[in-house]
């Protein structure tokens, strides 16, 4: 198993009111598998991803990535296991760093050599010309930016990629390009994905298995087959399903 | 998010107290290590060393600084700010006299600059990049770029010496000097309270020019901040929605934008007000205005540290208190933060 999560709980305590956002979640993802998580806004999807990536410190439970149990603060090696792609391509690149710098940063942080060659290669990998290294993010379109973000996540060659609504800020036509790119990379490098989205169509297209989340819990699990057949086991999942395909 | 609960309030009050205490320490230390020499000022230039030493001892300046500080704190705990070298009076009574003069002036000034500056800023934003905007901006900038003392003297030449529209320097004509017994210390208020309308109008004639000049200097900041806040709001969706609903431009600005920037404006006004209270020194000198700025400057000149420390603390307190009020205004006026409190 590439990812194993057991009894994950997250509680935000803001003031008097405690906010139990993720409740007793357990799941696992096999190597090469793509797991989708859907649910309405605020149900805790991103929080789960943030726990996996290590951005969220306030969780309890057990998380193992690529076979090693990880704690709340991650070592550089832990970080290398999983990288993340964010929703907003406009916010995930530093506006004053050139693309080349943005891609070189992870390599520098990890103390790698041959930085610029790697940068060049990874730009090609996501279908961008090497000359883009000298551009600023604002000189790129949204889709191109998301490519750069994916390149940056992949440049450290992590086995796991966490995708938080990677296409919801993009047009359908661009979305198709990005989804294709993601699928290609997965197949080429044998990556494991966890994809969060509220767009069931995207999830269904990409994922082998879908978890449906409501109020911090998983209420349903659907296989690719189920999705094609429109089969659900839970009322909420049914509702969601119908709303998507009006 | 800022919340306004009792606990939060208590926390803020302690913060205020701690800040004030640190301010006190810093001022005291600065005051005591200054080379300015209050002893020389008291005993006079020709005094001989024994008289000098005796006075030094009398003022307690021969003690180590920490002892002086403890003595000072002890006095403070009993509500005693010490005695001012400058006047021989308790500092507190001096301040009680000087502060209202500044307070009256600064308050009038902030009122004027608010009632001119905010509408000007709103108008400038509404007619962005038009002639009106440019004029508003230059008018405000000129106030910001010309020294107050220059304006003060030119103002006196024109409106006092030339046109005789306003009273001269000082708070009131000499004829009326001492005819109002201070109650609040605010001459405008006291004269009204005592039914001396003649004095009221005379005092109003005296205060209007310095107040307008101070207000003009402060207006630049208020206008430009109002303009920039408004512009920021004007690009918001809710403004477009309001316009789509059929709300006219003026109404949009007054009814929709103004409530949104009110809290930010309050902060700006609080800062400006604090600045006016402390920064009126030069105006006070030009207009012979017996306020706290002049008092403090004179005290500093002769090294009268009791007076300086006390005045600094008062001003620091007001400044912090205004900020504190502005923060509370956030909690009270902004529904988003008010919600968080419940």
């Amino acid at each position, binding site marked *: 198993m590439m990812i194993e999560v057991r009894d994950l709980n997250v509680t935000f305590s803001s003031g008097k009111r405690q906010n139990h956002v993720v409740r007793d979640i357990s799941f696992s993802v096999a190597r090469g598998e793509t797991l989708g998580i859907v649910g309405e806004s605020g149900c805790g999807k991103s929080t789960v991803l943030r726990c996996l*990536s*290590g*951005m969220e410190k306030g969780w309890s439970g057990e998380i193992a990535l690529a076979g090693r149990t990880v704690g709340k603060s991650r070592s550089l090696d832990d970080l290398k296991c999983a*990288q*993340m792609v*964010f929703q*907003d391509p406009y*916010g*995930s*690149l*530093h*506006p*004053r760093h*050139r693309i*080349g710098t*943005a891609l070189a*940063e*992870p390599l520098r*942080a*990890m103390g790698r050599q041959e930085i*610029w060659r790697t940068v*060049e290669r990874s730009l*090609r990998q996501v279908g*961008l*010309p*090497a*000359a883009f*290294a000298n551009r600023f993010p604002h000189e790129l379109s949204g889709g191109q930016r998301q490519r750069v973000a994916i390149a940056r996540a992949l440049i*450290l060659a992590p086995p796991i990629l966490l995708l938080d609504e990677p296409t919801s800020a993009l047009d359908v036509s661009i979305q198709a390009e990005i989804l294709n790119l993601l699928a290609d990379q997965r197949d080429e490098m044998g990556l494991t994905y966890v994809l969060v989205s509220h767009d069931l169509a995207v999830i269904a297209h990409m994922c082998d298995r879908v978890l449906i989340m409501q109020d911090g819990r998983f209420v349903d699990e659907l296989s690719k087959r189920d999705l094609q057949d429109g089969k659900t086991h839970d009322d909420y999942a049914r509702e969601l399903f119908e709303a998507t395909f009006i | 998010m800022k919340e306004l609960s009792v606990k939060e309030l208590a926390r803020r009050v302690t913060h205020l107290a*701690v800040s004030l205490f*640190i*301010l006190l320490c*810093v001022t005291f230390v600065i005051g005591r290590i200054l*080379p300015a020499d209050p002893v020389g000022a008291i005993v006079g230039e020709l005094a001989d060393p024994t008289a000098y030493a005796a006075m030094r001892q009398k003022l307690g300046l021969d003690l180590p600084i920490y002892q002086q500080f403890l003595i000072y704190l002890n006095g403070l705990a009993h509500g005693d700010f010490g005695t001012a070298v400058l006047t021989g009076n308790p500092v507190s009574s001096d301040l009680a006299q000087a502060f209202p003069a500044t307070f009256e002036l600064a308050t009038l000034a902030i009122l004027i600059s608010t009632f001119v500056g905010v509408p000007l800023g709103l108008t400038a934003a509404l007619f962005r990049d038009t002639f009106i905007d*440019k004029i508003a901006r230059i008018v405000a*900038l*000129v106030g*910001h*770029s*010309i*020294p*107050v*003392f*220059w304006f003060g*003297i030119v103002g006196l*030449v024109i409106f006092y010496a030339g046109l005789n529209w306003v009273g001269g320097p000082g708070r009131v004509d000499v004829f009326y000097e001492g005819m109002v017994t201070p109650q609040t210390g605010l001459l405008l208020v006291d004269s009204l309270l005592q039914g001396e309308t003649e004095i009221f109008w005379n005092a109003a004639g005296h205060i209007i020019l310095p107040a307008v000049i101070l207000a003009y200097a402060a207006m630049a900041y208020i206008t430009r901040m109002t303009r920039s806040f408004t*512009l*920021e709001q004007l690009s918001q969706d809710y403004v477009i929605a309001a316009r789509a609903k059929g709300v006219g431009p003026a109404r949009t600005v007054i009814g929709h934008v103004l409530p949104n920037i009110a809290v930010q404006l309050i902060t700006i006004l609080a800062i400006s007000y604090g600045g006016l209270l*402390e*920064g009126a*020194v*030069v105006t006070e000198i030009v207009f012979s205005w017996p306020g706290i*700025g002049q008092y403090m*400057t004179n005290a500093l000149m002769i090294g009268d540290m009791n007076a*300086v420390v006390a005045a*600094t603390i008062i*001003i*620091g307190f007001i*400044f912090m208190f205004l*900020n504190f009020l502005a923060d509370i205004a956030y909690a009270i006026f902004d529904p988003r933060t008010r919600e968080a409190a419940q």
Partner: protein
Amino acid sequence: MSDAIQTDLTVRPPSLSARISGSTIRIVSRLGQEPLGMAGFVILAVLCVVAILAPLLAPYDPNIQVLSDALQPPSAAHWAGTDEFGRDILSRLIYGTRITVQTVLSISLIVGPIGLLIGVVAGFFGGRTDALLMRATDIVLSFPSLILALAFAAALGAGLTTAIIAISLTAWPPIARLARAEALVVRNADYVAAARLYGASPLRILFVYIAPMCIPSVIVRLTLNMAGIILTAASLGFLGLGAQPPAPEWGAMISSGRKFMLDYWWVAVMPGVAILITSLAFNVAGDALRDILDPRHARS
């Protein structure tokens, strides 16, 4: 993708000069659309040139006193008239640009980095650090600034350096607050989260990611503050605590000129006009810079 992939181009870290020229070109081209802002920058540039070339431009020695020529009105010989010591006001103004430029530069160089550092550290680390730094900021902010300046002048002896230190001491808190507010926003940005994920150290995040985002608004704010700083320096001059005679500091010139305002208007008006133009230029340039550098304003 429509762009052809150019294989022969190797990726190299962009050189510093290329970066600087790149952004300069961008700023200048944007400025072209703002004539007023452009005018501001031109005036400031002229100011710098005048400061550098002062000895060549000034018709007289700024400190030579010709007591018999005191208080002459503007004329062909003295374009801006003479002051009470018979010194040529124009020459003094020209040399005064040096002091102004020096004051403004040194204050910016002190206040900018200090304010930026304190603000960014407070905003980024948050918690206790934030509370502590912001408390300190509040205290300094609530300190009557002119008084602090006076106290410093009294302690260190009056002079330009003292005035600069004193003004700097009271001028950083607003910058720090601004930088902090900015840092608070930036630290939650996705690119900072990403940087954490690939293991960038907190210091690196602070200096490479967060600080650069705060610099434009700090610069803008500094430019806008310049007018105020020139005036504060003038006020210190009014109280005799600014530059010492015979330095042709504009504020000191105005404040000694005020003694003759009623009869010899040019003595105070000439430096006044110089201050006015300079601070207008700073303000206008600052506004333009804001529109260019600050995305929140550019959006509208």
